Structure formats: C-alpha cells, structure tokens
C-alpha cells in the first residue's frame, strides 16, 4: 500500500521574511498584491491575492514588505535537501508544500509518528518554522491531513481508508470553483463525504468535467503519482595547512579540486541548480554564500560563479583555513543529454497524458483515426474514428 506524506509550512513566505529579521505583523507583497501574510493577519480578514492597500486598511498594524524571491528559493532548497535525507522521493509542489514518499518508513523509523518527528526535527535544523506533516494513502488526503493536524503535535497519520478520513472534512478543501461550492452549499452538501456520494455523471453534468478530478479525490481515489526525484548533492572539501589569504590561488585551488566533479556532472548529463560555498576562516569564523546556476556547468561558468562568490568574502587577515563547495539540486539537463530511452519515455508519457485527458474530458473527445476497410469505395467506409481507451 502506498503512503504519501505532505509537508506543509503555513505562510512560508511570511515565515522566511520573519526569519530574515523582519519583526511584527507582515504583509509580503509582489507588485500591488499580497503574496503572503503572517498567520495573525487572517483574523482581520486579509486574503492572499488582494490589493496590499486594502489589506493594510483592514490590518493597519501590519507592515508591507516586498517578497525576497532569492531568499525564499534558497530557504526552500535547503528544506528540500533536508527532507531528502528522510525520503527517497521528494516532490516540490510549490514554496512551502512538498510531497514525500512515506512507504516503508514505519519499518525504518519504528512508526510513522517517529518518522514525522524526524522529518520535522531535520527541517528545524535548517529553519525555525512551524511545519506540519500529514501521512495518508493519497496526495489529497495527505494534504488535508497536513492542513488539519493539531499545530501542537504538527503531524497527523491517517490510519483509516482515505475516503473515510475525508468524509467529515469541509467540501471547501476540494479544488472546486466558487460557483460549484455555492451550488453545493445550496444543495446542502457541506462535507467531502456528501460530495463523494454524488454519482460521477451528475457531478460532470452539474459542475462540468473539471469537477470530476475533485470527485475522484473525494472518494479517496487520487491516483496522481509522486514525480519527484532523489535529490543529490556533490561536495568538494579543501583544507589548507597554511591559511590562504590571497583570493586568486584560492580560486585556482577550488577550480582544480572541482575538476573531478565537473567530469562526473558532464558524464551523468546533469545540471546544477545551486552552488553553496562554506569557508572556515583561520580566525574561527564561518562564512557561507550560495549562487544560483540553474543549468549545465562548464569550467568557464564555474570560474565565473566561484569568482562571484569569493568577491563577497572580503579581506580577512587570518586567511581561509578550509573550504567546502556543495553542488546541490542536481537534475537532468533536459533536452540536452543523449537519452536512449527517450522514445519509450515519450510513449509512456503520452499514454499517461491521454489517460488523464480521457478521464477529465469525455472519451468521445479524444479519438484515434483508423483504417476500417482500405478498399472501400466510399471514404466514410474507408476510415473511422475510435475512442482512446483510458
């Protein structure tokens, strides 16, 4: 039986801003709109997506600050790296939400509760935020479990079947349009269980084919697979017997030490998302900095990145005692590497896409052409259309 965990940090962007030293109630804005807000602003009715001026009028104690995307990305990457230590598959859904493969973790950690605790502890080492973890048989149920768990415990494991767990939850948790929710309310259907009891054909007729996904999820039949990959990182460690003061030899030494790693990346057809540099100064201080690469890494590019990173190191009279370079977020160089199985992969992906299309839209909308009778005189007898089987 598959077990999926949802890791969720409520108000992630606001939490990152708070971690960066912004005090008080916060409205994180992008342009003129609210992108995220501190949990306390929910009481006066601040909503994500509304105009910042309107939100400030509603909550005058709050302070509007612009979103720091780089900081959020850095923090989220570090959290994903921490999650990857406890699960073979981590899918990055969006900032603040990730799905993990939790299958077999009870055996490894003693129980799912212990595993959830270990995951939260690991993330706690990276960032001091209140994370919530929900474990269930499907993604949607895991998400609802993560959202509805007690903030004190911070985790919830669903033991019963997903459908039974979801039944008493409010129907508003489902990804339905506002109009669909209004009509459900008029019909007196207020729980996911009530919505799940409706026949699928009636749901499609009343709310359109888009609602069929939500209906399946409500019945505990959310079969969306996890699409994450194992997160890997490569490290290069350099220790200097005599602390290095000059930047140029330091840069050359780092480049020379990274040659093997570059070769490994090239051979594996991998791109790097982030390079982190951690230097220990002879005075005992630690200095950390990271840069985004987001693509294939060659010698020239690595030189430019390291030069940029070292530029911020500044003058230190004691010099650098050791350096650790971390190549994080390794992923395939999409479309650039030779993939012998590309054709088979494409076919499998297409089958999956068509299956989803047929499920979402009615089968008659997705068809294949076929030759019925090649010698028929009339064209209408010669060719035909047949439904794609889901």
């Amino acid at each position, binding site marked *: 039986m598959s077990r999926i965990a949802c890791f969720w940090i409520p108000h992630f962007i606001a939490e990152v801003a708070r971690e960066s030293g912004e005090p008080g109630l916060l409205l994180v804005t992008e342009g003129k709109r609210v992108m995220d807000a501190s949990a306390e602003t929910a009481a006066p009715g601040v909503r994500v997506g509304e105009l910042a001026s309107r939100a400030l009028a509603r909550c005058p104690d709050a302070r509007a600050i612009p979103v720091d995307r780089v900081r959020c990305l850095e923090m989220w990457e570090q959290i994903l790296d921490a999650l990857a230590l406890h699960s073979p598959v981590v899918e990055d859904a969006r900032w603040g939400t990730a799905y993990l493969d939790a299958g077999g973790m009870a055996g490894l950690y003693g129980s799912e509760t212990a595993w959830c605790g270990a995951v939260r502890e690991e993330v706690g080492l990276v960032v001091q935020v209140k994370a919530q973890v929900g474990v269930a048989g499907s993604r949607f149920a895991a998400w609802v479990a993560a959202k509805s768990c007690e903030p004190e415990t911070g985790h919830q494991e669903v033991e019963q079947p997903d459908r039974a767990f979801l039944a008493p939850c409010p129907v508003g948790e489902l990804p339905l349009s506002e109009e669909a929710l209004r009509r459900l309310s008029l019909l007196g259907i207020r729980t996911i269980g009530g919505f799940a009891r409706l026949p699928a054909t009636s749901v499609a007729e009343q709310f359109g084919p888009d609602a069929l996904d939500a209906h399946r999820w409500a019945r505990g039949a959310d079969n969306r697979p996890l699409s994450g990959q194992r997160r890997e990182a490569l490290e290069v460690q350099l220790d200097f017997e005599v602390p290095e003061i000059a930047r140029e030899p330091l840069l050359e030494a780092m480049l020379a030490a990274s040659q093997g790693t570059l070769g490994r990346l090239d051979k594996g057809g991998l791109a790097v998302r982030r390079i982190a540099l951690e230097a220990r100064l002879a005075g005992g201080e630690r200095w950390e900095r990271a840069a985004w690469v987001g693509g294939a890494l060659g010698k020239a590019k690595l030189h430019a*990145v390291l030069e940029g990173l070292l530029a911020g190191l500044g003058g230190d009279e004691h010099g650098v005692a050791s350096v650790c370079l971390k190549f994080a977020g390794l992923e395939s160089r999409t479309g650039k590497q030779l993939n012998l199985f590309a054709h088979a992969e*494409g076919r499998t992906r*297409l089958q999956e896409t068509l299956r989803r299309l047929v499920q979402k*839209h009615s089968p008659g909308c997705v068809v294949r052409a076929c030759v019925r009778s090649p010698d028929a005189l009339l*064209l209408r007898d010669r060719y035909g259309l047949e439904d794609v089987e889901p």
Partner: protein
Amino acid sequence: MARTRRSRQLQHTISVIQQRWGPAAIRTANESDAASGPPALRTGFRAVDGLLGIGGLPRGRITELIGSGTAGQATLAAKVLREAQRLGQQVAWVDVPHTVDLDFLARCGIGFESLTILRPWDFAHALTMTDDLLRGGGIGTIVFDRISDLLPDGVSALDVALRDWNPVLNRSLGTLIFLTETQSDDAYPAGLPLPFFASARLGFQRQEWLYRRRRVTGFTSKVAVLKNKFGPSGQSALIQVKYTNGILSGDE
C-alpha cells in the same frame, strides 16, 4: 580611457547580476546558447524551408498559418506532422470544427498509429484540452485546427493560454501550429493575440488551379512570411500542391 572605464563598469554590473541571479541570468550574445537559433521541423516544401532561415518551422515555438480556403495551409501543417512522425514524435490534431478529413491526412502520408485527434465541444474546451495535452507531455507537434471568428471571451481565453504555453513549449521543444482561416485574403480576424505570440507567421494565397485535360490536378499558392523571429520577414515563394495518383504531394 573612458571606454575602458565603461567596459569595466559593465563587467561589474554583469557580475553583480550574475552573483545574485546566477550566470544564466545575463550574458553576452556570443556566450548565449540561443545564438544558433532553435531546431526546426521541415515543412515538406523546400521553398518555404528556405524562406524561414532555419530550415523549417521552429520547434519549441508557436507558428501560425493563415489563409482562406484551399490555399495550402492545412497541407503544409499535415506535411509538418508527417515530418514530426518521421522523427519519432507523437502528433495531435485539435479538430475544433469536427471536420477533420482522414483521407486527406492519409494522403499527406500521416501514420494513424501515432496520431491523436482531439474533438472538443467548443473553442474554450479546445483550449483546455490543448493545455492538458501540452502540460502532460509526450506529444511533439500539435496542429490546432482552427481559429476563425471568435467571441471576445474566446479571444481573452486564447490570450491567457498563449501566454502560458510559450514557456511550456520552449521547455519541451514541442511545436504548436495554429491554422487561421480568413474570409478573404486580406481579412484577418480582429483582436486575435496570435500575431504577438507566434514566432513565425505564414500567409497563404491561392494563385491558380493546375489542370490536365480539363481536370484539376492541383494548385499553386503564394506563401509569404508575415513574421519570422529567426530570419527575414516579408519574403514570399510559390509552392505547388498536386494531387497525383491519390497522393497529395508538394514540390519536395
């Protein structure tokens, strides 16, 4: 002296941006991967391939083929699908008016085993299905048949969809071809957002029918490049579409 200082300032600015956003965020044109242009799909008409500058329709981009009835745009789209199939791609035909001619596709050489046909209820449904297909992956080339007189809400939905699809196509190197049928050669539907989002736009104008002993054996058409991001625009060429022995052939 001033030039050296300016150049140094520029280098500094570039390194500051690269430090913050990564080296891929800013670079000079000679370092760029995009300098060589995108890969292309041959159209089956040598003259048209030559006009486009990169040897065919750009992959990873949107292309629009515009013309009134029987001007050759559907034939060119079908030929591109055949070429895509030759490269091992799966292809799709979004049949909005439910008028797909299977005999025509077969005569253009398209194999049915790797062709999927979408038959949406209406234009909005067609956009939703195409969106699902593009995001799901697995399809290399899609022909959207066709865009004609749209209501204002259809235009705005298309605008939003095109805005989203360009990056998706760019990542997957998929090709999306829109067929736009006009009432006459000069009448392009007003307000359509395609001219802004398409990387290549070709206009088709039928010139004359080809006869053999009073039997129509094909037609010639003038193809003009209305927009081209990878080569010069404004050029045109004549193509011939012939029906010979039941096989629809171009001047390949």
